[in-house]
């Protein structure tokens, strides 16, 4: 295991200070490497990034958008990160939208969030005529495509490309000492909607201080350095990727942007990153690919022998891992040596597997409400199966509920610290529920801590289903869709773990038997329901699609107030 060494990263108080410091220290260093609109590889330096951010800050002020709410929707790209950093620095509230949102969800969030402007990338321009005809854009002051180009069927005077938006902006007169004296904003700076626009929807309010505290704590726990090259594959609208991007800026790292899920392997070979931040979906798929390739070449036995040899040699102080497995590592670009994994539970065996190959895998735990990082295995002391100790910006404790057979105290995980959200937007009831009287945030996750303060997650009190790609699915939302299918009388959606550790959405349904002839075979009814659910799936983003259906012959057990006892449904 790596030794603990001093971490060297910028001590910036807020995002503007961070962009300024990077411009001073490494103006010519490449911050982002990415595919431009024409598909060519392009680069943006830290100096160029600072300049663009300053221009956007000025433009926001000149157009009287200071303090207003601006949504951003799009794939990971420089414009997304620039606008995010600039808008926060200009005192705006940024609302990162999930790229997979449906038109009615975008419309709902624009209304609920009282959004004033929207920035979007070319891939989303197709949605805008539909959004306009649905009336979703009526209240917006500005509609800002992040590229210069026409949007078909959308002539609108509020439409202004990002380049035109900043074209005439006069840089603000602000001295370096003014920038360096500034403090992070403690008020609502980011709004994050946690699910669809149903009754279960909540909007998390994070401050700039939250996100900066989280990013700095991440920097302390991971062994990244200024010389690292990362490849970004997770969507930037997730707080996980967002906080990591800020952490990478604190270190002054070069980040390469993967343009498409289809191109992950190709881009790994192109960018040759030495570090990545992933969710378990990627780690388990990488693992599967390694084994598929080994099997296809008929080298399973040799590979297993090689793994044993590598571990034995390492035990006696000889590290041959990267040489022994160079052909395997080449498939991932050849330089990959560290992975941070979070967002969902990971198979603990994968950590051992990747260690054997010479890739250090550190698992962490987070939740959007904590910006999101709560704990991570530090590089100098990792424990298999644990999500690590609390990061430096927060404290964690267990709200004792029971003791397991090994005498460990199990209970809900509570968090207190600078990374904990400002609260849920416009939702007093939810805020009362999640904060204790003495200021601890109830995560809804259940676990225990060992004697070293390392956290282990064992379950969940709330209904949210966390998929291995880190996406959260709120079963109530899917059940609402199912309730609109006539042949389904009742349903409960659960996340079932498969043998390989993946979690799949399963709908347990009680049919509306009145619609079928008396005595009809249940398998025929199940087939009919399956067809209807397939139709429903066609209109849902892939992560919300129902993967499995269980048809039951009896109604669900109910409480006295006629609510389904969902905890009985597994």
């Amino acid at each position, binding site marked *: 295991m790596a030794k603990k060494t001093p971490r060297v990263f910028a001590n910036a108080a807020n995002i503007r200070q961070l962009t300024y410091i990077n411009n001073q220290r490494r103006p010519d260093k490449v911050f982002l490497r990415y595919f431009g609109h024409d598909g060519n590889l392009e680069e943006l330096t830290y100096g160029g990034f600072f300049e663009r951010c300053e221009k956007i800050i000025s433009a926001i002020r000149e157009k009287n958008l200071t303090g207003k709410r601006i949504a951003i929707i799009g794939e990971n790209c420089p414009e997304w990160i620039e606008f995010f950093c600039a808008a926060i620095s200009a005192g705006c509230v940024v609302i990162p939208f999930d790229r*997979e949102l449906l038109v009615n969800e975008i419309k709902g969030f624009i209304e609920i969030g009282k959004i004033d402007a929207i920035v979007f990338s070319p*891939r989303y321009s*197709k949605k805008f005529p539909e959004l306009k005809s649905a009336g979703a854009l009526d209240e917006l002051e500005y509609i800002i495509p992040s590229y210069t180009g026409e949007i078909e069927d959308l002539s609108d005077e509020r439409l202004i490309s990002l380049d035109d938006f900043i074209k005439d902006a006069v840089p603000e007169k602000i001295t370096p000492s003014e920038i360096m004296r500034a403090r992070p904003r403690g008020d609502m700076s980011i709004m994050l909607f946690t699910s669809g626009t149903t009754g279960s929807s909540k909007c998390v309010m994070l401050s700039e201080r939250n996100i900066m505290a989280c990013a700095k704590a991440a920097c302390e726990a991971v062994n990244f350095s200024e010389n690292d090259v990362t490849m970004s594959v997770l969507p930037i609208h997730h707080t996980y990727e967002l906080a990591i991007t800020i952490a990478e800026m604190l270190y002054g790292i070069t980040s390469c942007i993967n343009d*498409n*899920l*289809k*191109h*992950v392997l190709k881009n790994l070979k192109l960018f040759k990153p030495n570090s990545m931040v992933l969710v378990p*979906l*990627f780690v388990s*798929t990488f693992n599967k690919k390694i084994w*598929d390739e080994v099997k296809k070449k008929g080298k399973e036995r040799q590979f297993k022998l090689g793994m044993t040899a590598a571990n034995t040699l390492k035990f006696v102080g000889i590290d041959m891992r990267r040489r022994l497995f160079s052909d395997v590592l080449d498939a991932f670009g050849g330089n990959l040596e560290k992975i941070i994994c979070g967002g969902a539970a990971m198979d603990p065996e994968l950590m051992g597997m990747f260690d054997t190959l010479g890739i250090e895998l550190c698992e962490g735990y987070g939740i959007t409400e904590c910006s999101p990082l709560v704990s991570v295995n530090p590089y100098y002391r990792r424990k298999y199966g644990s999500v690590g100790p609390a990061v430096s910006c927060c404290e964690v404790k267990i709200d004792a509920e029971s003791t397991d057979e090994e005498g460990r105290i199990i209970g809900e995980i509570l968090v207190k610290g600078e990374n904990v959200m400002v609260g849920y937007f416009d939702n007093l009831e939810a805020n009362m529920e999640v904060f204790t009287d003495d200021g601890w945030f109830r995560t809804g996750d259940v676990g225990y801590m060992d004697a070293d303060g390392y956290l282990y997650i064992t379950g969940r009190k709330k209904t949210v289903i966390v998929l*291995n*790609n880190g996406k959260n699915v709120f079963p109530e939302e899917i059940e609402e869709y199912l309730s609109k299918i006539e042949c389904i009388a009742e349903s409960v959606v659960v996340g079932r773990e*498969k043998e390989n550790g*993946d979690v*799949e959405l399963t709908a347990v349904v009680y049919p509306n038997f009145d619609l079928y002839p008396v005595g009809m075979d249940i398998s025929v009814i199940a087939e009919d329901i399956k067809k209807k659910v*397939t139709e429903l*799936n*066609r209109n849902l*983003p*892939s*992560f919300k*699609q*129902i*993967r*499995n259906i269980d048809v039951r012959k009896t109604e669900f057990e109910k409480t006295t107030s006629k609510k389904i006892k969902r905890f009985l449904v597994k």
Partner: protein
Amino acid sequence: MFEEVKNLLVEEMSINADDITEEAEFGKDLGFNSLELADLVVMCEDRYAIDIDEEKAHTIITVGDFVKYLEELLGEKQ
């Protein structure tokens, strides 16, 4: 085209041939995750020299949907 896709799924992605029907859903019945679906898309793009639209790929649910879409693309190409 269905048989070609079926062979691809069996040979390259180790899917059990008996599970592959036109109605089989990639996620629900064949156990695909989003990255594996992306892999299949890339394989077909390379094999048939076509470009599969990302938005469209999201709406492909069943093997039949995929076959139909491939046929459309190949038809346009000719």
